[in-house]
């Protein structure tokens, strides 16, 4: 775990750290609310970021939303918030409303997209964003303005051929890409040993002659440092890096899944004790950057924010059925 001294050495300001902490708490509060809404039958389907939030927020904190590009995946709720999505917007997407900024209710929630924010709309398909990020990186390299492309995915996605093709291309052309794997050791019910041959995801970087780093996903500062270093390399023209953040999946894969049917109860119980949010909170307290009172204030404000986000989304209109055939082509 990063020590206080290490953290201070990163040059991250208290404001930045607290903003990230707020993002993390916002993601969690949103998630809690979505589960309530799901149980009440108000929304259909949830993929939860629970356990990944700190790693996601740390990664984005080390980058430059507004300047960089972000190819996120379906579990990246905290990352999306860090890129500028609001609670209300994510609620609109949970309710599949017309004003969902990502897709107007067309895609399942978790497929984040916003051109003006540099968040490239993904699909539910696992893997294809990885070589796409290499292409975006190539374009950014040609532009020469120092922007980079961040792309995230689970360890399951690394099994796809597209993972290999993307890393190979980006490495050959020194594309400014940060490959960020959120390794929660499970792809739905398939555990890492049946998914990833060899020592792990980061160990694959060497195959392409690029840096590969393993980092504890509940250590905000460690993730921040790893991504900041990868970003520095990318912006300097030194090419891509692969970062493997080890996290826990503190929920089932989705509300369509029940992990108790395939996981060891003891292991599940033990993991439940390792929520990364208290760890981050504790780090901030150690640094003297967060008091209990401040924490309560943040969380209370978030409750209100999410109340109104929910109210807004509940009241928002569904997509007009007559728009079904729009945007198949540019002139449609």
């Amino acid at each position, binding site marked *: 775990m990063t020590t206080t001294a290490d953290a201070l050495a990163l040059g991250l300001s208290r404001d930045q750290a607290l903003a990230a902490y707020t993002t993390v708490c916002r993601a969690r509060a949103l998630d809690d609310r979505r589960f309530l809404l799901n149980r009440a039958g108000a929304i259909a389907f949830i993929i939860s970021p629970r356990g990944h939030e700190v790693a996601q927020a740390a990664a984005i904190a080390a980058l430059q939303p507004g300047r960089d590009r972000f190819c996120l995946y379906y579990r990246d709720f905290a990352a999306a918030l860090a890129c500028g999505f609001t609670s209300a917007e994510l609620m609109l997407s949970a309710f599949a409303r017309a004003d969902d900024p990502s897709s*107007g*209710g067309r895609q399942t929630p978790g497929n984040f997209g916003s051109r003006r924010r540099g968040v490239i709309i993904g699909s539910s*398909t696992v893997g294809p964003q990885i070589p796409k990020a290499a292409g975006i990186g190539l374009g950014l390299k040609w532009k020469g303005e120092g922007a980079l492309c961040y792309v995230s995915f689970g360890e399951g996605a690394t099994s796809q051929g597209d993972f290999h093709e993307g890393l190979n291309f980006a490495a050959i052309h020194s594309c400014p890409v940060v490959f960020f794997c959120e390794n929660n050791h499970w792809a739905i019910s*398939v555990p890492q040993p049946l*998914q990833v041959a060899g020592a792990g995801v980061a160990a694959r970087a060497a195959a392409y002659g690029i840096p590969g780093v393993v980092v504890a996903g509940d250590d905000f500062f460690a993730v921040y440092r790893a991504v900041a270093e990868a970003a520095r390399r990318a912006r300097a023209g030194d090419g891509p890096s692969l970062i493997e953040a080890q996290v826990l999946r503190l929920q089932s894969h989705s509300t369509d*899944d029940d992990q108790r049917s395939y996981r060891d109860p003891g292991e599940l119980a033990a993991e439940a004790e390792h929520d990364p949010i208290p760890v981050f909170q504790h780090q901030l307290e150690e640094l003297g950057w967060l008091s209990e009172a401040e924490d309560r204030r943040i969380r209370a404000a978030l409750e209100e924010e999410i109340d109104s986000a929910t109210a807004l989304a509940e009241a928002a209109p569904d997509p007009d059925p007559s728009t079904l055939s729009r945007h198949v082509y540019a002139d449609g």
Partner: protein
Amino acid sequence: MAERTLVQAVRDALAEEMERDPRVCVLGEDVGLKGGVFKATEGLQARFGPERVMDTPLAESSIVAVAQGLALEGYRPVAEIQFADYSFPAFNQIVNEVARIRYRSNGDFGCPLVIRAPTGGGVRGGLYHSQSVEAFYCHVPGLKVVLPSTPADAKGLLKSAVRDPDPVIFLEPKKLYRAGREEVAEGDGALRRLGEAALVRAGRDVTAITYGYLRVVTLQAAARLQEEGIEVEVVDLRTLRPWDVETCLGSVRRTGRVAVVYEANRTGGFGAEVAAELAERCFESLDAPVTRLAGPDVPAMPFSPALEQAFLPDADRIAAGLRRLARF
């Protein structure tokens, strides 16, 4: 005989075939302990072990490639692709490799394997868990394509697919997985031959040729039209490649009117093949144009219920199309 849903019938078919033939094995993402995301393989790993029911890495191209390798070694693999939408990463393995191996080896090699995948929409899966992919595979010589819509058909056709000497794409309409139950036979008594359509409702005025989930909706439309005095004959193709041209020709020659009803994107859908063939071969019996009632040309069912409903042909729309045809 026991009452079974479609997904249970799939599971029974797999279990029976694995019991019958030690070469039969199952592989795919999450098919093991979890039993598949739709539970189609539930309990099979406990019964047959982690080799014969194998969780694979998240990589569809290799799922098909490994299944093919096993088939070449004499096994009878049944690969699950978690959603038909995710068969595309395996498209090269399916089309260039699996489908063409018998032809390119001049008959020296064969590749008996089954690729199962849930298909179609209507379960709020959004754009990437709702696609209808049959037209892609129906255009590939060397493949067979099956798309059942009842528990008994699913079981009987899957058992036949497993025993077939050629590769079979077996698409299961996910909206029907738990939509109803029916008595399903056991053992060889359950077998259904590939390539035979079912005349599921007799009628003298209009023929509706359909398959998959829209069989259910077409039958609803037919019941409604009966009240108006229009008798609709409904044919469920069940197997799309090879499809049962004779049964369809027979029906259309009797009624003189035919609509092909399918959920997939209209343009270039498999219904175009059916319509084109019938239009050519029934020309002199036709009293009205061969008509297609199909899904719109948008990528797939959106997640929003409002849009999903706008996509999926319902009984009203199908009835309207058939009524128009009857009155032509």
